[in-house]
């Protein structure tokens, strides 16, 4: 008797779950864990492994990178020369999961890595990649801790250079410095307030450089407020203080999820202020059910815009929209450029699929640091890499206008 009651209750729970599901179809992002069959699977292909958040709070970045890398791999394979095979693993932006994903990729026989999409896991993973000698070009993990070898503010190098690591995006310090310079040059704000996440290396790194550069340029920072991952909920006290300090521009070196909360709370407080973000802000327009009118006038620095009129961008955007029904963001563009940069380097060094990952690694490091290695891509022309692993390209200022990014 007791058993039947239990069974009945279990069924009831299932029924409730099912009814609550009704109407919520296609809601969750799809998780791709296994081999991606849309990428070519020729036996003579060089295996490229990517890791990034396909689910979780930063899923937009991981999805964009995965989608764009797939497009680039298809294009490269269609050229008939070097063949690539891509496998992309989910890490939910978590360092521990990224290492697990990396082990899976190693078992699969990965030869070249795309690092991880977000910063925090990439810092952990870069040490492993360096020790195991896998060449890695990350599209978007922007902290200098990913590269290592950078002096801190006292001039000490605490993390030695991990020479397998290269970046396609700007480093955090560069974003901070470039943002401060941009605000000063364009005279966007007189009194600046800042809200950053001090439990996150990405956000803190950008903030510190921004502050240093702002001081050097004579920009007045009137209020600096912080939050942590656990307190990323209520921003009214931060906004109250910044408002009281009289800021006319708020710099947000944070990801788009907390940024969307800040925008909505500022709106409810009727606080009319300009917002300036960095690459983490990219994605806010695609946030599910987000009222894009709240993001109207938000400015951000990004190396890529989907409405640029050059052939390369137009082709890429058209393909991306056709395939994924979405406008690509800069993470997608960075990932696309990553595949092409790896392709060009492989071509120059005559890399073949039967080479070991160690040999490929040495050859690619040599090629990327060579002064004549220049890449024209979606995110910049004549991009070069230095010994430090940093890319050299120009940022562009963007503003959100009628729900799309427009060049400033």
């Amino acid at each position, binding site marked *: 008797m007791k058993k039947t009651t*239990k069974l009945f*209750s*279990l069924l*009831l*729970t299932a029924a*409730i*779950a099912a*009814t*609550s*599901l009704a*109407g*919520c179809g296609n*809601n*969750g*992002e799809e998780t791709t864990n296994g081999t991606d069959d849309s990428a070519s699977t020729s036996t003579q292909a060089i295996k490229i492994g990517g890791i990034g958040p396909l*689910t*979780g*709070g930063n*899923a*937009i970045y991981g999805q964009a990178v995965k989608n764009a890398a797939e497009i680039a791999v298809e294009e490269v394979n269609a050229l008939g020369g070097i063949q690539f095979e891509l496998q992309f693993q989910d890490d*939910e932006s978590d360092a521990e999961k990224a290492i697990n994903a990396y082990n899976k990729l190693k078992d699969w026989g990965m030869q070249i890595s795309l690092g991880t999409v977000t910063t925090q896991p990439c810092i952990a993973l870069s040490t492993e990649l360096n020790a195991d000698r896998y060449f890695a070009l990350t599209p978007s993990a922007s902290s200098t801790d990913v590269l290592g070898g950078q002096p801190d503010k006292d001039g000490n190098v605490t993390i030695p250079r991990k020479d397998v690591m290269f970046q396609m995006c700007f480093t955090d310090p560069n974003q901070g410095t470039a943002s401060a310079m941009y605000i000063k040059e364009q005279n966007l704000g007189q009194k600046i307030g800042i809200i950053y996440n*001090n439990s996150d290396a990405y956000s803190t790194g950008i903030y510190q450089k921004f502050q240093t550069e702002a001081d050097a340029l004579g920009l007045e920072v009137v209020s600096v*407020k*912080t*939050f*942590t991952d*656990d*307190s990323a*909920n*209520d921003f*009214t*006290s*931060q906004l*109250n*203080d910044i*408002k*009281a300090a009289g800021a006319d521009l708020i710099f947000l070196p944070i990801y788009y*999820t907390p940024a*969307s*909360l800040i925008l*909505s*709370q500022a709106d*409810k*407080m*009727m*606080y009319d202020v300009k917002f300036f973000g960095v690459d983490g802000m990219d994605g806010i327009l695609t*946030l*599910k*059910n*987000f*009222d894009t009118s709240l993001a109207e006038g938000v400015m951000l620095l990004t190396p890529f815009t989907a409405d640029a009129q050059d052939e390369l961008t137009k082709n890429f955007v058209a393909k991306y929209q056709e395939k994924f029904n979405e406008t690509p963001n800069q993470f997608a563009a960075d990932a696309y450029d990553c595949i092409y940069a790896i392709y060009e380097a492989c071509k120059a060094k005559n890399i073949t699929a039967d080479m070991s990952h160690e040999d490929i690694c040495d050859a690619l490091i040599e090629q990327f640091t060579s002064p004549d290695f220049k890449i024209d891509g979606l995110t910049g022309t004549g991009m070069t890499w230095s010994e430090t692993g940093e890319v050299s390209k120009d940022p562009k200022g963007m503003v959100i206008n009628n729900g799309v990014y427009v060049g400033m």
Partner: protein
Amino acid sequence: MTFISNLISGISLGSVYAIIALGYTMVYGIAKMLNFAHGDVIMVGAYISFCASTYLHLPPIVSIVIAMIVCTILGIVIEGLAYRPLRRASSLAVLITAIGVSYFLQNAALLIWGSTPMTFSSVVGFDSIPLFDGGLIVTSESIVTVIACIIIMICLTLFTQKTRIGKGMRAVSEDKDAAELMGINVNVTISITFAIGSALAAIAGVLLCSAYPILTPTTGSMPGIKAFTAAVFGGIGSIPGAMLGGILLGIIEIFSKSYISTELSDAIVFAVLILVLLIKPTGLLGKKMTEKV
């Protein structure tokens, strides 16, 4: 003016804590157990309301009612499946079960809705009110939350004091066995308590997400823990205590964020809790209980 703005933010945040804390405190007062899954029922309530308004395009009030109904059923099912078989077990076993239920709900939500954050549209239909020529803005969500909190508290107090079922609840809370001897059905009474607590959780979820409109499967856990703190702070088992504790906690949190440090705000909240418990172990409005030997 910043002070008053912060005070309003604090009361508003505190009112949400208070509504959640009412759920904790009722269940504890009557069933003598800590229902750690309460925070996750909040999350379920918010998701149901989100789905009802986004996918079925129902008006906000209907979506809240649907969320309340689903949560009520969920509460009764959780109680019947997970807690009732442990009625005579040690309190530690019940506590661990509650944590298990909490994880179950979070992961079920992860499966159903995915972990991509959703933006919750506010259920409040009117705009914020500017006072003193815009020097002070009272957000519409804070007004609604505070009013809802007060109404809920009054209704609950009347319910437990005046109605038959309410009297039964108080009897069960004082002595389960004696209540049973007096003809009160203890199981039904506890089920009703869970039903009410879970319905409140649905309201709290909707209000929480209206004020802070990002919805993920872990949305309820941090506010749940804070509200539990609020319930202990105010004296667990006491309805006005939960309300007082919640609002004080909200104010302390916002003020320490604003005037001391954001990173320390949670530490300060819990430090205050420890202080109160050292001075008054039963919480601010807790009843003194004499253990009979």
